[in-house]
């Protein structure tokens, strides 16, 4: 194994020093400020967490640390010194020598960052060979060594697979290993676990933490999830709209944040709705799913014998990882997918299986809100038309009455009618789009709304606003919700009942308070245990308790072997 580069042996401990950074981005022929004068210092072996909402400039600042700007952005002011070198004055070629070699980058979507046509290990070896750090055989050996350390399954053979042959969590870990291929001094992690399930997230976090500690690498960890950053970082910096809000050591920051904005971020996770009282025994459920087995074109069943009820004014959260059949259940309820066996009934009356054969009134009373508000709203229609359509179709409102109704609905979702009524969806923020999606659903005056991961694409503060809105609408309009989510914090906030799904099977269901107190089904246990807590020691404790081999995929595989699922 080659020795650590000697060129970097400067006396000071300061590795990266960014001073008074200003970055502007071009939009619509105008330059807009993205970062306004942020300072950043990073010592060797230190991990800095960057926190903020989307649009706060976290990623832009992280990339600037590599002396890199996205297309349409430019660094207008400030200085960046990496290990004593002035990055701003280096030529493109000199910067290229640094990137990938002494500074490396781990992107959010590993699946999109790997070249699908090459084996993992070939992509691993590329950087060390280009930078003349190692020969091919040395790099291969080193890769296998790293795969062992981060606990990948079958590490000797792992690298000889193609990216599509391994799971998302494994791919993200392989990318972390790849970032280490040249033994960099600094790694920038840009939301590396945001796209992953909670159970797989832990594996990746454990791998990153392990490797950063082992090689004494400095890192910038960018995330919007506080609990995750709390595990990884020594120091946390909070950004808001391109300005630094505050920065402090992790435990100080968690215990006593000084700024109001930071406090509000911390408070988000404390939203907890009172559980509604249980329905009477005799009450008829709004939606009753009975022994539904369903699947797509292939013979494989995605749902196996799923049954649960949703009562009036209650929220049922359907929880599970991706691929567990949550969304498929929603498709069966809405009639987009016809079940092979079983049925869905609405207030005791069996619904026709396909939406085409349902009556207009049946369609009206089951509405849906989608995860991606961007694709759920027709980009060519104005807000007025988007919301008016269901009211016009189902309730026959026209002219003045329709306009009145639309304005009313906009008031209900806390958006000023005069300001928004004539806008296009592209002129709204993510949270506002999601509100329009909600308005469109309630415009039909439904009995139940299916919420498919409605908050998972949003920032925490915005997501909390949406949850509060849904909660208020529920009590005002007597709605029921079927709330599909993988985020247990959301479940805790809004659910009355919880249905835990795995591989198309309901593994456990019951009222919320019971679900969050032991004893659990082992899968529920794993799911609950994998949600990061705000305690910086949480990950270490969990690793001690469970051991490295009992996390995420590995734990699920074990469960499967024991015949528990």
């Amino acid at each position, binding site marked *: 194994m080659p020795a650590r580069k000697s060129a970097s042996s400067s006396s000071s401990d300061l590795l990266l020093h960014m001073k008074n950074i200003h970055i502007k981005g071009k939009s619509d*022929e105008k330059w807009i400020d993205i970062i306004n004068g942020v300072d950043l210092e990073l010592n060797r072996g230190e991990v800095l967490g960057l926190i903020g909402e989307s649009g706060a400039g976290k990623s832009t600042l992280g990339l600037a640390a590599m002396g890199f700007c996205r*297309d*349409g952005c430019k660094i207008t002011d400030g200085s960046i010194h990496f290990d004593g070198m002035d990055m701003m004055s280096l030529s493109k070629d000199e910067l290229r020598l640094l990137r990938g070699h002494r500074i490396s980058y781990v992107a959010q979507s590993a699946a999109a960052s790997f070249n699908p046509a090459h084996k993992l290990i070939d992509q691993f070896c590329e950087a060390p060979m280009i930078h003349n750090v190692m020969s091919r055989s040395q790099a291969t050996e080193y890769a296998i060594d790293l795969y062992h350390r981060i606990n990948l399954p079958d590490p000797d053979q792992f690298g000889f697979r193609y990216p599509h042959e391994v799971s998302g969590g494994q791919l993200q870990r392989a990318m972390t290993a790849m970032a280490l291929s040249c033994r960099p001094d600094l790694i920038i992690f840009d939301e590396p676990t945001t796209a992953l399930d909670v159970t797989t997230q832990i594996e990746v976090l454990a791998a990153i933490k392990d490797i950063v500690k082992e090689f004494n690498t400095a890192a910038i960890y960018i995330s919007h999830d506080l609990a995750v950053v709390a595990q990884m970082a020594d120091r946390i910096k909070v950004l808001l709209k391109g300005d630094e809000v505050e920065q402090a050591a992790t435990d100080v920051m968690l215990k006593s944040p000084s700024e109001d904005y930071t406090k509000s971020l911390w408070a988000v996770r404390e939203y907890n709705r009172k559980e509604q009282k249980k329905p009477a025994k005799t009450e008829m459920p709004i939606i009753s799913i009975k022994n539904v087995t369903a699947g797509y074109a292939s013979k494989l069943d995605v749902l196996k014998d799923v049954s649960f009820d949703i009562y009036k004014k209650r929220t049922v959260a359907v929880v599970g990882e991706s691929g567990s059949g949550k969304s498929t259940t929603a498709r069966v309820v*809405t*009639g*987009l997918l016809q079940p092979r066996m079983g049925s869905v009934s609405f207030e005791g009356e069996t619904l026709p299986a396909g*939406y085409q054969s*349902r009556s*207009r009134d049946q*369609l009206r009373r089951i509405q*849906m809100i*989608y995860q*991606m508000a961007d*694709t*759920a*709203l*027709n*980009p*060519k*229609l104005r807000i007025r038309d988007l919301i008016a*359509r*269901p009211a016009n*179709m189902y309730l026959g409102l026209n002219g003045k009455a329709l306009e009145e109704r639309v304005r009313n609905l906009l008031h209900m979702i806390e958006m000023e009618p005069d300001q928004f009524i004539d806008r296009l969806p592209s002129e709204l923020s993510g949270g506002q789009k999601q509100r329009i999606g909600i308005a*469109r659903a309630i415009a*039909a005056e439904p009995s139940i709304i299916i919420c498919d991961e409605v908050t998972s694409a949003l920032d925490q503060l915005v997501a909390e606003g949406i949850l509060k809105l849904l909660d208020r609408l529920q009590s005002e309009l007597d709605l029921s919700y079927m709330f599909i989510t993988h985020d247990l914090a959301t479940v805790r906030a809004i659910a009355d009942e919880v249905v835990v799904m795995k591989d198309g099977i309901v593994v456990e269901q019951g009222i919320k308070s019971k679900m969050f107190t032991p004893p659990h089904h082992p899968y529920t246990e794993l799911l609950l245990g994998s949600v990061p807590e705000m305690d910086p020691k949480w990950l270490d404790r969990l690793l001690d308790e469970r051991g490295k081999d009992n996390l995420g995929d590995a734990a699920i595989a074990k469960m499967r072997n024991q015949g528990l699922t």
Partner: protein
Amino acid sequence: MIYLQTLLGVLVFIGVGLSAGWVFREMLVFITSRNTGKFLRTAPLTACFGMLVIAIYIICAVFAPFIAPYGEADILSGGFEPWSSTYILGTDNLGRDVFTRLIYGARNTVGIAFLITALAFLFGTILGIFAALKGGIIDQGMSRLIDVLMAIPSLIFSLLMLTIFGTSVLSLVIIIATIDSTRVFRIARAVSLNIVQLDYVEAAKLRGESTSYLILREILPNAMAPLAAEFGLRFCFVFLMISALSFLGLGLQPPTADWGSMVRDNADLISFGDITPLIPAGAIALLTIAVNFVVDWLLHRASGLKD
């Protein structure tokens, strides 16, 4: 020496063309509303030149009787008069004024090509989106039928049909529109296949919207950009096709002026070193290039690429 002169001529032409484009763009930005102006300012000079040329053609086509010095089919003198102050571009084999026929040709050829392209898009787009929306057997059936029609070379197919149904303008329009709508169908279907999967289409389906609402309000507006670009390209093909058919004697019938048949009528002059027959051919080439400049720009915008 002659090469240098030609080179110089080409450079001057490009320079004049681009600067004319620039002047045209400034003028458009000045007279249109603020938003349209902002949009137009992003147009490259080639696209502006294209728009200018198209504008000139449209003006010629619309005001042909006012611009042209003589009547469309007037026989004014003996055949093949040279260029002179009375007959700017001389006369053709029957003694009709070439300049006049060039202007009327814009009206006939461009007008009919536009009509045909519009019809082809009307059928092709609606059927294409319908196939994408319905999927399954309907989609398969329609697509295979279109494949069969597309498998026959279009020029030969149209020659065949024109021989069967006769060479009236009506049958010309219907036959070429049908043949071209198969190409539009393919593109409309491909574009909408991506759109029908989006959540807002699903939401509209679940709302119980009719098929025509789904096609016209939900899918078509969002498929507009690539279709508009395709419209420009398709227009060129149709235009060339009509000219080619006229050249072969199956397109627009005399005495209607048409650029394709004008090339054929005066083709003999080429052997005497007279370039008059090349002028209608040049008019075809110039419009084709102009339309493609504009289409390139629109496609570039639709693809969302930054320079």
